């Protein structure tokens, strides 16, 4: 699936269990040799490699470029201040569409996916393995097949492609990821908490809404963030099902042949900084919480 698939793991981890069991004692103290420097040095080089295109995109958002943003012409804040002024606001329009589509697909996929996850963990029923397969397959299918399949179906039924078809498509590939993320959270819940709720004469509905649901919230939020990220950056499936509607990735793809304006870099950089801040805050608070728990225990 598209880029952010694996964020599932990390986001799920952010939301999930604090307890880690490395199952190891600290390595024995040894003389520090070449081998001890090699791996950290390699790690640094690998991170530089991973981050180069991000830094490039960010730096070129300050380029005083004309139409296309290829060679460096000088530093300016202009593009950040007037993002929507280029091409009659085409970039901003595409960006706005991406946000609307992302929110709609996230709300639907998170609702449906959470319901499935609850059913899978809490209930026994037949056709379980068939349902698991149905949830697994969309993640194992190349996007171009998912996109072409939906487009073929919309064509056969005679549905015109617009914003709705994009939302329907995005919801489809987000559901499985929501199920995986939320399911991990439900499985790690302590059943004693719900038992305590029942012991205190809570009705099943009360136990669910006042105990289970609040405990699930971090997992559901993580799943929602992941869905939004998947939807926001999706290009391939969108390309097959969007008709004339533009989204941010589609805008980048179409303008790639004639040069991307620096305003696209501005939007991408702003989104990047926002997402990074969000994840860093979550990660830091998680580590701090784990530390507190460790002190208590």
């Amino acid at each position, binding site marked *: 699936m598209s880029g952010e*698939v*694996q964020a*599932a*793991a*990390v986001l799920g981890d952010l939301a999930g269990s604090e307890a880690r*069991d490395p199952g190891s004692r600290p390595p024995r103290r040894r003389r520090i040799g070449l081998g001890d420097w090699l*791996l*950290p040095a390699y*790690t640094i080089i*690998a991170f530089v490699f*991973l981050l*180069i*295109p*991000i830094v*490039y*995109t960010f730096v*070129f958002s300050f380029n005083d470029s004309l139409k296309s943003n290829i060679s460096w012409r000088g530093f300016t804040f202009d593009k950040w201040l007037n993002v929507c002024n280029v091409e009659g606001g085409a970039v901003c329009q595409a960006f706005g569409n991406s946000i609307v589509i992302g929110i709609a697909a996230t709300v639907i996929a998170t609702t*449906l996916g959470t*319901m*499935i996850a609850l*059913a*899978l*963990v809490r*209930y*026994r*029923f037949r056709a379980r393995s068939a349902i698991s397969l*149905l*949830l*697994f397959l*969309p*993640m*194992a*299918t*190349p996007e*171009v*097949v*998912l996109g*072409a*399949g939906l487009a*073929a*179906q919309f064509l056969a039924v005679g549905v015109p492609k617009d914003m709705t078809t994009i939302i329907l498509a995005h*919801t489809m590939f987000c*559901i*499985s990821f929501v199920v995986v*993320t939320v*399911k*991990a959270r439900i499985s790690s819940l302590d059943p004693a908490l719900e038992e305590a709720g029942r012991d205190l004469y809570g009705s099943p509905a009360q136990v669910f809404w006042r105990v289970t649901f609040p405990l699930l919230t971090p997992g559901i939020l993580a799943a929602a963030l992941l869905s939004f*990220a998947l939807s926001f*950056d999706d*290009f*391939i499936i969108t*390309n*097959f099902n969007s008709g004339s509607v533009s989204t941010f*990735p589609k805008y*980048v793809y179409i303008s*790639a042949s004639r040069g991307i304006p620096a305003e696209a870099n501005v939007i991408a*950089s702003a989104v990047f900084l926002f997402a*990074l801040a969000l994840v860093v805050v979550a*990660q830091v608070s*998680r580590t701090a919480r784990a530390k507190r728990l460790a002190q208590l225990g």
Partner: protein
Amino acid sequence: MAFAAFATAEAQTQAPKRKSRIALFLLLPGIAYLVLFFLAPLISLLLTSLQAPREFGDIGQFDYAFNWQNYTAVVESYLPHILRSFGYALAATLLALVISYPLAYFIGVKARRWPMLQGLMLVLVIAPFFISFLLRTLAWKQLLSDESFVITSLKALSLMAPDAHFTGTPFAVIFGLTYNFIPFMTLPLYTTLERLDTRYLEAGSDLYASPFTVFRKVTIPLSMPGIVAGTLLTFIPAAGDYINASRDFLGGTETQMMGNVIEANFLVLLNYPAAAALSIILMAVILVLVGVYVKRSGTEELL
């Protein structure tokens, strides 16, 4: 890891038996959605792949038929693209594995003592996800174009022939695929390595195994679930990708993959049956390869 998450959650699911009416209510909307917008489209794709052109019809007009010759026709015309797709995806998967393993090992094993550093490194691994996939690929295109600093320097140092190019070559496409899928490889490797019990490694060296032997006989087998999940998560999307191979990005006319011809046939040439037949071939080959691979690597519980 998505794969692994499925497996582990499944094992824990010894749920109590309760009213299945609630289960039905919870499952029905989501499952119906997937049937309608995932399964039905696959069937539609299969039916489309067998369509025949309408007699005296316009471009893009087809009727349902059983025209299986569509398949032989696309294999005949697009065999190089099919081979390239799987070849490039395989090369990128292997490269990504070699690049990601030491990285995941450092984060998951060596950095255990510093949870904060470990957390921040994980954020750095997923950081590329936060910026558009297309812009990252374009950034590489511009950084490695013929006029770029890197390429002109290589040429000045005679490390590259003066008339050689990087962008537009198979190497550039494989490079782009590798870059884009490194996080997919690193994260599942990290999750299995993070749980690796280092006492096994110590036991290995206590029994006089060389560090290399310990790595080969202990570390690698113990991290097999991560290797399988990572290679699948890289190979599947890489084989279907058409951004990296596209002419406007890192590819050229001689590097077009299956995704490119599916896109061209569907959206430009309006030859829907050809696009559908290619999609079905892509999906079938991937399912067969994945099935064989998962069986052979002995990690069937992943699926």
